[in-house]
């Protein structure tokens, strides 16, 4: 098959990745990595490099749409990036080391197990469709971590405020570390911190996660670029496809019910966890 057809197919895969990424807040990279490794025989390190490009394009697309719709909480997103950015830099640096040391399989299995735990936690919260107002901590009050948005599905204005900012910072550092190591958006963990720890509505969590994912990916890309893991030719179809998919996803999200978003998020989480464990154990 000609090189051009490979790139066209890759762009189509990136459309799907961008759509899933924007809809669930996971960034889309987790779709690109296994497809590149399994179907295109691309080395894992190069797949990680292509994945961060997907994430950057995805986050810029959905980030702008969600900011325009005021679904994104700029303050909370910016604040939590203090934890995700150093996590991502350390994670990417670890990947450079691990690729040379051939020690990634055990970490992939561990990641899969963690994600399954998060998926189960997500299932337990599925019935919790309505958002309840939490009690903000001192930092949350001082920095103004509260807000509101209009839910077009429920046709009402939802107000929220953040609690447990320390816990969220800890989860976000872990999210950055995982994102940097595996080249994924780590939106799974980011949404967990925003939704589970800060107690933000799922739509605000998803939009803010998308907003943050680009900055996290930017932090790790500096390391991955220097290591030669970002292939500039692969980047073009991946970025274009991810942008198209993310655009469609960002227009679909505001009209969806919270329950639908949460179920989609959980299903994606379980699927990728199983796949990660199988891959880590040396499966197909």
């Amino acid at each position, binding site marked *: *098959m000609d*090189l*051009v057809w*490979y*790139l066209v197919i890759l762009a189509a895969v990136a459309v799907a990745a961008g759509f899933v990424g924007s809809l669930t807040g996971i960034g889309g990279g987790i779709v690109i990595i296994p497809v590149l490794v399994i179907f295109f*025989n*691309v*080395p894992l390190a*190069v797949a990680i490099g292509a994945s961060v*490009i997907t994430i*950057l*394009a995805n*986050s*810029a*697309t959905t980030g*702008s*749409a969600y*900011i*325009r719709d*005021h679904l994104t909480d*700029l*303050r909370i997103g*910016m*604040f939590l990036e*203090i934890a995700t*950015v*150093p996590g991502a*830099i350390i994670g990417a*640096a670890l990947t*450079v080391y691990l690729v040379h040391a051939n020690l990634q399989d055990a970490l992939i299995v561990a990641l899969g197990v963690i994600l399954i735990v998060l998926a189960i936690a997500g299932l337990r919260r599925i019935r919790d469709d309505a958002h309840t*107002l939490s*009690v903000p901590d001192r930092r949350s*009050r001082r*920095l*103004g971590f*509260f*807000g509101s948005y209009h839910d077009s599905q429920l046709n009402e204005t939802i*107000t*929220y405020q953040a609690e447990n900012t320390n816990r969220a910072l800890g989860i976000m550092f872990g999210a950055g570390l995982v994102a940097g190591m595996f080249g994924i958006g780590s939106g799974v963990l980011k949404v967990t911190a925003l939704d589970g720890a800060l107690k933000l509505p799922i739509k605000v969590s998803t939009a803010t996660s998308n907003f943050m994912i*680009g*900055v996290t990916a*930017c*932090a*790790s*890309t*500096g*390391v991955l*670029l*220097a*290591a*030669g893991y*970002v*292939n*500039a*030719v692969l*980047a*073009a179809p991946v*970025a*274009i496809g991810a*942008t198209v998919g993310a655009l469609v996803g960002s227009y679909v999200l505001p009209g969806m019910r919270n329950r639908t978003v949460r179920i989609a998020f959980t299903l994606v989480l379980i699927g990728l966890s199983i796949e990660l464990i199988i891959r880590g154990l040396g499966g197909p």
Partner: protein
Amino acid sequence: MTENSPTARRHDLPPDAYRDMTRILRAGLITALVILSGGVIAYLVENGSLSFGEMVAKNPILSYLGLDSLARGLSTGQPEAFLTLGVLVLVATPIARVLTGMYFFARNREREMAIVAMTVAILLFVGVLVIGPFLR
């Protein structure tokens, strides 16, 4: 109004903050996509006979990561240099968004949030400009 009320004490960012951040993200993304699209078409014209595996193995980006080599590649119309530039624009877009946030928080006299944004920007510059090249 209670102390915990969501409407208490926060100074909302002005609408132009949201508008400008949206514009920056879109402008960065569109610029990167235009450069990448042109670059990949030019690359395929010159290297269309390569197999997929050969293309992956021959990553051109490392040759153009320096400012001098990138400028030289762009001035001589090398497709790989344009692809590299597209990737760099994509990477720079979130940084520009953080700097815009810092500007609006400072303009809104929110000192703590401006410091938060500045800290994120410094961390990004350290990661991209210091740690990345150090590990190279």
